[in-house]
């Protein structure tokens, strides 16, 4: 009967030999304590970022996001789901590099991110949860890359009656919305409403009292032209490059 060779490999961090456990995809190096991801008998360094945003902080984070983007009312959070996304992170010598998702993603926003930084989870926590809920990387690494798992909350937001997916980076508290959430551009204020009401009354009076059809047309056209410009000024926000004030969002 042929003997089956015992699986073994070397630590990606220190090069010491480590025994591979057939039940685990992530094994610890007994020499340096690094976590190693085992892919086809090859060991890769793996790390997991510690989340600083918990599920109790989601609403407050969304409110801050709405405030920063000038949305008067914060989107309603319909559902919150924990999600880990592995990224291949280039070696430390690469300056200004980006981390690429090692799995298929739901939105290109998650596909490429700045190199994730933050506190790393202790090895025990990594080993305890590594195989339970982590997505397996299905994109191969390039040379010298390490695998880093970034925690997200996958959210469903309702903004102004429409639902949109979004992602909350739990290491930075940043919200990535799949569909742009915009403040409102137009505003119906008392001044505009009063102007349009007055314009309507005067036009109705022209229609009822003007002596001839020609005078009706001329007077109403002249009045419309005179009202259109101030109405546009009242409706549009001043300084459209940086809108202020609150409203609705999609």
């Amino acid at each position, binding site marked *: 009967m042929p003997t089956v060779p015992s699986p073994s490999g070397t630590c990606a961090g220190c090069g010491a030999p480590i025994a591979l456990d057939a039940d685990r995809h992530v094994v610890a190096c007994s020499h340096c304590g690094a976590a190693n991801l085992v892919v*086809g008998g090859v060991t890769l360094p793996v790390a997991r970022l510690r989340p600083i945003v918990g599920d109790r902080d989601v609403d407050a984070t969304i409110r801050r996001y709405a405030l920063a983007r000038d949305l008067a009312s914060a989107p309603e959070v319909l559902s919150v789901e924990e999600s880990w996304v592995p990224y291949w992170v280039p070696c430390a010598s690469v300056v200004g590099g980006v981390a690429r998702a090692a799995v298929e993603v*739901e939105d290109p926003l998650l596909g490429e991110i700045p190199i994730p930084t933050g506190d790393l989870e202790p090895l025990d926590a990594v080993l305890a949860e590594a195989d339970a809920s982590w997505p397996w990387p299905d*994109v191969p690494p390039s040379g010298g890359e390490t695998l880093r798992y970034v925690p997200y909350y996958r959210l469903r937001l309702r903004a102004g009656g429409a639902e949109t997916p979004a992602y909350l980076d739990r290491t930075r508290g940043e919200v990535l919305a799949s569909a742009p959430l915009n403040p409102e551009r137009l505003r119906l204020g008392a001044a505009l409403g009063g102007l349009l009401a007055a314009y309507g009354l005067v036009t*109705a009076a*022209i229609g009822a009292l003007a002596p001839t059809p020609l005078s009706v047309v001329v007077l109403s056209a002249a009045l419309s032209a005179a009202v259109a410009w101030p109405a546009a000024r009242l*409706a*549009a926000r001043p300084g459209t490059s940086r809108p202020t004030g609150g409203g*609705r969002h999609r």
Partner: protein
Amino acid sequence: MTARLARFQCPTCGALLRSDPTEGAVPCDYCGRRSATADPLASSPRSYIAPAVDRSSAALAFRRLLVESGVLPASLRGGIEPVDLRPAWVPFHVARAIRVGVVERPPAETIDFEMDAAVESVGGARSVSIRATRRERPEPDRAKVVLADVECAVAAVRRPGWGIESLAPGAMLSRGASQRSHDPDEVRRHGAVLAADIGPEEALRRLAGEAGLSGTTLVAPSLRTVLVPVWRLRYRVQGCLYDATLDAVEGRLPAARAPEDDRRRIPVAVAYVGVAALLFGLVGRGTWWLLATAGGAHVWLAIACAMLVLLGLFGSYAWDVVRYDAERVLSGGSVLSEYVNRPRSTGVQRLLESLLEGLARAGRRRVED
């Protein structure tokens, strides 16, 4: 993100196996035995269509196509500020099969002749009888013939507003795009692959539906996954964010959103208010004339109702224009204008609807009386 960590162990030696979704079976690095993945549908072979539009070309094409397609008002073309340009792969399930049909050949016809004719011959007249009858072969011929190769591509992802429905990998290939077998490094170089949320069974189902000729069947169905590259752009106009999708193979713009030009919308609202008010005034003048001459109460009621309806209608239009932001949406090759966050029926519309309903009820009651 679905957790797709599968405990992959070699059934012979217990060693860990690679998880490669592009392969139907993976070899064990220790004992060499090949193990099939659990789900054959999930491991359909992959290929990708090579992108022909790089990042800088995409950035230029977006700006040009947003204006050419008419989705961005010409007055706002100077105000585009690109925010983010990201590549992505859109997976398509491509089902292929051979359509086989049973063709019946019509029965052959044989003809017998029967006729009488007089033939002059040496030694006197002879009579020749020829009979003609029409007989049909009772059994038709049946032949099983291959009719055609049929193929159907279904997007494996649902992304409303991305224009994915107008991407067709088969049409791209027929127009000269190059298809390559899956190369993870090349795919990764372009961008992230979108996670599939539609199973490949949908492609087989649609293939069966499209190729459903009577008397034909599909044989040897096969599935593969084709990745189609796109660019997703976010850009800022008038302080708000909008997005668009660019087909990275042919440089088309399947979907985009852009704001309406507010400077043109407000005069439209003013015009609506003016028309409503003018009609109101003119109808009021007509009412006065009717009452002064020979009008009765029922005529006055009808005219008053018409006034209210017209006022409500144009007032509703004016309200929508002034109250709700509008966007231009490019979808399916046509540009539509839609209000953002406008409820299904506004307050003015509800008032108008209740008024019309009341009028109809009054009319019915009058008829019943």
